[in-house]
């Protein structure tokens, strides 16, 4: 046995020696690259590839005689590849050589048809793909006009001929068969596909040799090859549609029916996006949420922020005018109950040169609430109290049509134009009962008002911006123009009944107010930037702005034959014209940006007041002009490690508004009267801002500070005169004046860091707000100091991907100090502790819940209220593709939700409360075209 083994091993050894001798470990591979006509091909790229995966092992270049050599390479199987400009790449399998030199001899390469090479590679710049003898290229680079058939496209392609009857020839030979995506199309007639298919559906055209039909049938290769063509269709990955629809119904235990429905549908392709959206509910969703809104607006979501009011390159946008007040987003204020419905349609066209959007939205809201106010008004070591009960209801609707176009002519010229038209109407009625008391116990008087109004208005805003860049780098010019118009009318029915209890007495006032107005604005701006060097720039800008306001407010006495009350009726025109010229020098280089500038502004205000049109003027016309000069400084610096610092200083001069100047009093309530002051001076304000951000992408930590400080030397505020009048009660007359210095600080700090990366993170934010102002209350100066402190923290815990837990805590403290009556300073505390939980407990079942416990404390008024809010829901995805969702939800399980607001202002402390939608249960069913995600969202993404 042993000997046998020995023999075998010896034999094996001997065999291995023999085989070693036959196939050397290293080998030299050489050859000569030649073309079809046996000419040597110089400077061809010659590569040795791995035979299985074409991995590059070695490469060289043939010399001027076409010869190439790979010296001393591993003796194994290779794929030899020879490439040369304008030749078909050649692949040749090489087996391990038995000799040390493997001479391949002549390696022949075939040229690529000249027309293909010149037209496809050189002219169309399209890639040629070579698969053996088949060459294909991207047919989309040969544009056929829209509506063309494949036949029209083929006529344009190099190497292909199409005769009158549509027969195809490639390289002079008839094409016998045409496949579409590799499959026969309409039988054997090759023209079936080419005559019927749209050219724009084809992405690639392949022509290749195929065994004859005969040899396919018999299985015997007769050597006859026939030309065949394959049309590869485009992958329409950018085309599609998506959408979802939800219907929900529910009730509370008292049987009040709750319902909601919403749906959206989008269709899109590479350039076009069309979407529709609709919603209706009675669960206080007054509009759509951000997610639905951004899907609705698509690529135009962030297009509304163009600003044509050029100024300092980082100015605070004083002339910014496109407000977003008619956004279709949910903006419920927390009070009462609402019925809502609305919907819209949006279209976007978006390619590299042109961006176009047109959008229409209709919104209808009906709100009803009962609100209770408790208010203490302070004056000279004394105060009075109000208990107000208001029953309010309104009905508002608006239609908004907006459009925007952005056209890039070339990289140096761009135009943006936009317009927005809105029609809105509001009908509201408000019943209010206000009890006045000086000591919080005895009732002085009781004012009952019943006001209703109807308001209609149109609004047009439009603007165009043109930007041009010059050839000199950094030199640019921009011009903008805008036209805004806002006419409307308000009609009010004002009824009040005032009952006095000291001297039993009643007074009824019933007035009708009819106001129509028309506001018009024309403005234009210019901006020119000139580079002084690579790092220094000069910017010059000019703003022109004119506003014409025309208001006619006629107040009649409904108790006295609708005779006009001259003392309250007014017809006025206000005109403002602003000319502003400014310039700055800017340094910008490698993360350091410094700007120093100054702007001069000339503002003219003209106002004329009479009782009605064609009546004599009530006072001398207001004719004021203000000249001001404001400097501006900004400094931003980007540190090397994701750290940014910004500092800015500005000085602003703000003219008093016409509301302050107006010489005719505004009386909407017999106990409050607001007068104007024609002698007001403009406010002069210094602003300082500071910003710091730090982000560490490696440790997932971020930190930021944002602070601003404003100082105004002569701030405008209302002086109040509180007079006890036996016949009327407590009357407050307010007059604006340049009263005092004001200081305002607004500061935020935030930090976020992981305790365990990706599993456990902690965020903090800290806010401080300080406001100091003053005014005279019954000729005594009242200094108001308001301090607000905010502290938020949250812990987000994701132990496994199927469970997301968040813990949060919030504290908000308001410390209000009024010098006029220091004993009535109030300290308002509110705290919230929260817990939210998302748990995917089976693949398609999700449990979601959040619990907030809110504490409200105000010791001055012994106010102490705790509100726990618990919501919970369970949802189940259904269907193979998870297209359906069934959700059962319970809102505010403890039935405690309530609107609460507390603050202090000027010379009063106030607390408002209102009932709102509390506990209800709801079952909803949703369908999503694309299917729902079967994963928990981590809710950290903005879009």
């Amino acid at each position, binding site marked *: 046995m042993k000997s046998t083994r020995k023999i075998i091993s010896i034999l094996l050894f001997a065999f291995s020696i023999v085989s070693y001798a036959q196939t050397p470990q290293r080998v030299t591979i050489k050859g000569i690259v030649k*073309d*079809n*006509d046996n*000419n040597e091909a*110089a*400077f061809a*790229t010659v*590569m040795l590839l791995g035979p299985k*995966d074409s*991995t*590059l092992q070695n490469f*060289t*270049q043939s010399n001027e005689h076409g010869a190439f050599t790979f010296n001393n390479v591993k003796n194994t199987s290779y794929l030899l590849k020879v*490439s040369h*400009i304008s030749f078909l*790449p050649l692949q040749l399998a090489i087996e391990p050589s038995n000799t040390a030199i493997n001479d391949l001899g002549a390696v022949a390469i075939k*040229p690529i*048809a*000249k027309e*293909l090479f010149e037209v496809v*590679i*050189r002219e169309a*710049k399209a*890639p040629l793909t*070579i698969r053996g003898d088949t*060459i294909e290229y991207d047919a989309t680079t040969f544009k056929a006009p829209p509506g063309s058939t494949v036949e029209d496209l083929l006529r344009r392609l190099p*190497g292909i001929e199409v005769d009158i009857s549509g027969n195809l020839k*490639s*390289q*002079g030979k008839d094409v016998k068969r045409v496949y579409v995506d590799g499959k026969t199309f309409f039988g054997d007639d090759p023209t079936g596909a080419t005559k019927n298919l749209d050219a724009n559906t084809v992405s690639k055209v392949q022509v290749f*040799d195929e065994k004859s039909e005969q040899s396919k049938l018999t299985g015997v290769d007769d050597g006859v090859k026939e*030309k065949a063509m394959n049309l590869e269709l485009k992958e329409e990955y950018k085309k599609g549609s998506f959408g979802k629809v939800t219907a929900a119904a529910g009730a509370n235990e008292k049987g009040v029916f709750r319902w909601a429905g919403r749906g959206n549908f*989008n269709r899109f392709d590479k350039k076009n*996006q069309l979407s529709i959206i609709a919603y209706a509910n009675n669960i206080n969703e007054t509009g759509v949420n951000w997610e639905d809104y*951004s899907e609705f607006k*698509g*690529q135009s*979501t962030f297009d509304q922020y163009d600003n044509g009011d050029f100024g300092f*390159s980082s100015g605070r946008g004083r002339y910014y005018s496109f407000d977003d007040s008619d956004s279709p987003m949910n903006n419920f204020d927390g009070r009462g109950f609402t019925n809502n419905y609305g919907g819209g349609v949006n279209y976007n066209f*978006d390619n590299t040169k042109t961006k176009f959007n047109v959008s229409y939205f209709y919104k209808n809201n009906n709100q009803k609430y009962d609100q209770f106010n408790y208010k203490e008004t302070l004056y000279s070591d004394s105060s009075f109290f109000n208990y107000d009960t208001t029953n309010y209801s309104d009905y508002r609707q608006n239609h908004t049509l907006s459009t925007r176009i952005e056209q890039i002519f070339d*990289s140096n010229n761009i135009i943006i134009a936009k317009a927005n038209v809105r029609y809105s109407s509001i009908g509201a009625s408000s019943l209010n009962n206000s009890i006045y008391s000086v000591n919080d116990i005895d009732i002085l008087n009781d004012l009952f008002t019943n006001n209703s109004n109807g308001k209609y208005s149109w609004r047009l805003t439009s603007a165009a911006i043109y930007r041009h*860049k010059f050839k000199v*780098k*950094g030199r640019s010019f921009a011009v903008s123009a805008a036209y805004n118009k806002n006419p409307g009318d308000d009609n009010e029915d004002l009824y009040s009944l005032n009952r006095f209890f000291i001297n039993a007495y009643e007074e009824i006032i019933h007035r009708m107010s009819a106001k129509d107005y028309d506001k018009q604005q024309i403005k234009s701006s210019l901006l020119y*930037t000139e580079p002084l060097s690579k790092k220094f720039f000069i910017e010059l800008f000019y703003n022109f702005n004119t506003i014409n306001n025309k208001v006619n407010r006629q107040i009649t006495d409904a108790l006295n034959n609708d005779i006009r009350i001259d003392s309250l009726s007014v017809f006025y025109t206000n005109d403002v014209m602003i000319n502003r010229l400014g310039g700055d020098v800017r340094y910008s280089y*490698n*993360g350091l940006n410094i700007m120093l500038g100054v702007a001069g502004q000339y503002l003219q205000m003209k106002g004329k007041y009479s009782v009605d049109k064609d009546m004599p003027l009530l006072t001398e016309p207001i004719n004021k002009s203000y000249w001001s000069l404001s400097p501006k400084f900004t400094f931003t610096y980007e*540190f*090397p*490690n*994701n750290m940014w610092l910004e500092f800015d200083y500005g000085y602003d001069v703000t003219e008093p508004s016409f509301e302050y100047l107006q010489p005719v009093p505004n009386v909407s309530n017999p106990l409050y009267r607001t007068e104007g002051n024609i002698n007001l001076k403009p406010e002069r304000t210094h602003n300082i801002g500071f910003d710091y951000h730090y982000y*560490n992408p*490696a440790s997932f930590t971020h930190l930021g500070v944002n602070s601003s400080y404003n100082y105004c030397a002569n701030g405008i505020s209302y002086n109040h005169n509180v007079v006890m009048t036996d016949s009327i009660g407590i009357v407050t007359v307010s007059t604006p004046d340049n009263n005092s210095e004001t200081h305002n600080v607004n500061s935020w700090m935030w930090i976020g860091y992981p305790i365990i*990366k*990706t599993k456990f993170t902690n965020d903090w934010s800290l806010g401080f707000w300080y406001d100091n102002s003053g005014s005279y209350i019954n000729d005594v100066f009242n200094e108001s100091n308001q301090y607000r402190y905010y502290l938020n923290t949250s812990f987000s815990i994701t132990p496994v991907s199927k469970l997301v837990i968040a813990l949060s805590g919030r504290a908000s403290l308001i410390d209000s100090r009024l010098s006029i009556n220091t004993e009535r300073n109030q300290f308002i505390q509110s705290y919230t502790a929260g817990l939210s939980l998302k748990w995917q407990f089976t693949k398609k079942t999700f449990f979601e819940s959040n619990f907030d416990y809110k504490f409200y404390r105000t010791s001055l008024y012994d106010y102490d209220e705790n509100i726990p809010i618990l919501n919970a829901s369970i949802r189940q995805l259904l269907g193979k593709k998870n297209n359906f969702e069934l959700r059962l939800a319970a809102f505010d399980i403890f039935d405690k939700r309530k609107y609460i607001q507390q603050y202090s202002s000027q010379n009063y402390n106030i607390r408002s409360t209102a009932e709102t939608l509390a506990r209800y249960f709801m079952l909803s069913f949703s369908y999503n075209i694309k299917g729902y995600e079967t*994963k928990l*969202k*981590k809710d950290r*993404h903005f*879009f």
Partner: protein
Amino acid sequence: MKPSSKRTGISFKKVNHKYMKKALIFMFFLSLIPFFSGKTFSQQTEGTIKYLTTYDWVKMLNACDYLSKERKEKISYMWGNRSEWKIYELLHFTAKKTKFEESEESADPREDDGYSGRKETFFMTCDFENNTMFDAITTLGKVYLIEDSLRKPDWKILNDMKEVAGHVCMNASLTDTLRNQKITAWFALDIPLQVGPDRFFGLPGMILEVNINKGACVITAEKIEMKKLSTEFDLPKKLKGKKISSAEYHAVLKKFYDEKRQAEEFPWGVRY
């Protein structure tokens, strides 16, 4: 399509051949830009390639396999036509070494908005003679100085041809498992230098185009300028950073990519 009929083939080939020879002689005598040649002239071959690099962040997110389909679809819908940003990058090359860096010229007209951001410390150098590399890359807010021997990528040679910057190129592909990228490179058949942009080199011809993850990043040669280089290869005098080997640098990246995968966030903060 089959190659053209024999007649066309012959005439074309002859013209081409004559042209090449003429061009060679012409260039040899002028001895200006002899980059058609092989090893004989390659040592004198030097210059700068200007690449236009286009990033498309929607495509970058779409190539990220762990982000949810819903999120990718939404981002594509909202930003799909506006997600590109462009920069110019320069490759200074000789037959023996290269240096790749960002150009000071801005490629994106939108960038001239009056704000200048900080330029990150970045360059990549290859020394083919000594088979070494030295890169300075700002990664996660930190400068890493990566010094190591050169390792050739495992290129697979493909079978497509196209023209880039006036040169006929063939393509090759590469899979980067660390960054989860599929890369296609186009190398010139008439410039036999194994140089290329970014971390790509080692093909039989100069790499004139690189396409990462189906267009998420496309680096295309816009201009090839043959010129005598002087200070282009100089490194910044002050160069602060953490010295690290290639393997250690890859470990830093690997850790970060893994964490971002766990957090289901795109790995912003590192070079794509």
